[in-house]
């Protein structure tokens, strides 16, 4: 499809045509289930739509994003999402969550992958077992952790007390200091296997000769990891980090179950849902969803640009 018209032979033109033909069903479905709702959401964000009466909406321009009001008293008030401290709090919560969780998951995933890459008895079983957290639906694991983290009956407080690591029961999801920690723990527990699996796949593609040469030359294992393994798995690692990062930026289910209304953990998606359905602010929630989309798109572009990742390159 990238060949210029001058070079294209009949065959390449035919191939391009059939490529489009094969892609068409997928594109149509994507346009219907992703494109159209996205456009509608963006459109609603420029109106004053209310779920009580969607038809009565009027065009309000950028008012949901930013507007300046002059009060009769002469005071100037900034309105809209960009002037809403709750929204910026949600952005900060989400970004902080994404950076910490993806970093931890990458490091832990790498360690797990390196361990699983070694030959040992029962490796198949361990590899399957480690995937279990990833296989459990998030809602189920979030509920499970909710009970495990419960301050009075939770198994975590019980275990820590018995081990003598804490002296009083910790209210994990209640206090501002530990609520985010609790969510991070659950997310890292759940998603490290995904990272490990992607990295393991990359590790198993590495040519063994390089390692043999390194061993013959007496290079230390530490140096082998930094100079050989890491650069070679980097492209795959970057793809995994992008996937996880995008996933983390739209975190919803875990927070919705564990601490839905806590301002210290409220994410952008939770904020959008709250305004869309709970408050009578469908348009405002649409604006939040649109900004979330813009933030996701921008961060993807930035990572692709500066991470020098070529998604079309074959590894």
């Amino acid at each position, binding site marked *: 499809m990238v060949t210029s018209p001058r070079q294209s032979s009949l065959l390449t033109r035919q191939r391009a045509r059939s490529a489009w033909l094969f892609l068409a069903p997928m594109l149509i479905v994507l346009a219907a289930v992703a494109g159209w709702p996205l456009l509608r959401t963006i459109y609603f964000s420029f109106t004053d739509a209310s*779920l*009580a*009466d969607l038809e009565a909406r009027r065009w309000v321009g950028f008012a949901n994003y930013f507007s300046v009001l002059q009060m009769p008293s002469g005071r100037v008030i900034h309105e809209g999402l960009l002037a809403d401290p709750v929204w910026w709090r949600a952005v900060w919560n989400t970004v902080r969550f994404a950076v910490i969780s993806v970093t931890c998951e990458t490091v832990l995933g790498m360690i797990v992958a390196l361990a699983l890459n070694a030959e040992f008895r029962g490796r198949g079983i361990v590899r399957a077992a480690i995937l279990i957290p990833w296989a459990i639906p998030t809602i189920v694991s979030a509920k499970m952790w909710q009970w495990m983290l*419960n301050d009075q009956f939770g198994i975590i407080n019980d275990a820590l007390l018995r081990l003598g690591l804490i002296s009083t029961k910790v209210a994990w999801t*209640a206090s501002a200091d530990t609520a985010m920690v609790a969510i991070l723990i659950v997310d890292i527990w759940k998603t490290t296997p995904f990272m490990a699996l992607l990295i393991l796949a990359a590790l198993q593609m590495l040519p063994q000769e390089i390692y043999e040469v390194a061993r013959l030359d007496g290079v230390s294992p530490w140096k082998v990891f930094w100079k050989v393994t890491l650069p070679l798995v980097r492209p795959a690692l970057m793809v995994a980090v992008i996937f996880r990062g995008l996933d983390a930026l739209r975190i919803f289910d875990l927070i919705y179950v564990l601490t839905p209304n806590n*301002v210290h953990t409220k994410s952008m998606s939770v904020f959008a849902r709250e305004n869309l359905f709970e*408050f009578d602010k469908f348009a405002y929630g649409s604006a939040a969803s649109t900004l979330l989309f813009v933030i996701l798109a921008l961060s993807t572009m930035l990572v692709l640009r500066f991470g020098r990742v070529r998604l079309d390159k074959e590894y």
Partner: protein
Amino acid sequence: MTFRHALLALVVGAVLAANPARAVDLAIVSGDTGNGQRILRQILDQYEKKTGNKVTVVPVPPSGTDQFGQFRLWLAAGSSDIDVYQTDIIWAPQLAKQLVDLTGATKDVVGAHFPSIIQSQTVDGKLVALPIFTDAPALYYRKDLLDKYGAKVPTTWAELAGTARLIMDKEREAGNKDMWGFVFQGNAYEGLTCDALEWIKSNGGGQIVEPDGTISINNPQAAAALEMARSWVGTISPPGVLAYQEEESRGVWQTGNAVFMRNWPYAYALGNSQGSPIKGKFEVTTLPPGSGEGARPAATLGGWNLAVSRYSKNPDAAIELVKWIASPQMQKYRALKGAYLPTIQALYEDADIASAQPVIPRWKGVVLNAVPRPSAQAKSRYNEASSKFWTAVHNTLSGEGTAADNLADLEFSLTRLKGTAW
């Protein structure tokens, strides 16, 4: 011509299909848990036998937030799949535009219900939902422990804190390490709005937004009430109370680890059920008042109602169904089977109910004095106003800012939310 014939046939068909004399299929959506769904089904079975209509129950998740979001979506889509919605007392004003006006159809029956409940379901002079049972919380206390340490049932919040502290310390000394004084609902959610409204109202601090729409929350008595509640957290209440909803507090209470609990009536039957460690060891009383000027006991009004969707294809049959479920006979049935509090005043003097569920007659005073949340005033902005309120309260309880500062901020943001009028 053939087109016209086809059209005619369609119209005739539609008229025939809408003939009220024929049996119709109705759908009711309910998020009742446990016993509730079964009792509803039994009530509907009796209705089906009587009318020949068929009613399908569409179950939804028990979480109020989830239900409200789902109802909003169904109504916004103009869905005719659901004829009757079971709504929380605070939802009717928010959904009113998409509900059928029941004023005319229920003229003959509304007089028997508590006027305050009917009032809460009336929006701009239209009754949009008919109550089927009500809810008002009470103070649960461990009679055995109070007797053991010679303590009286507390008559003010200060007495409650003192008694809770005393018994908790003594019990802990005796080796009962997990004992706490008082559990309530401190999570940041609608339940905290209910709890905090009680502390404030009972201390003479108003009811957030007064019936005339004035925002009254920023006053010293309200701030004092919140500071009082803040002093409980970590002393007589576990720090985790800031994440408790009803079931978490009942969990601590029913395992025997709390002296006092603020909760809804449902916890009464469960606490006395087979295998409960506190079976027969506890009693209920009204929530105590504070000490400020105009202090009086206050309980937040809860409860559930039935509303008919404007998009129902059989509104008349749906209204009949609503009246059936809300009727005195069915409310009595519900009270006998599940200890649900009736919204019909006469049932509190009913002899059968008094002997089968002795707790119900005692609740009449609580219901009569119950305080409504400002949902009728804030209308479609209620959820947002409530969320701002519980956030300010939760911040205060977790020690972020003083009550006075948080309430001043709250007054400002509520004023902005209100705009020129609610």
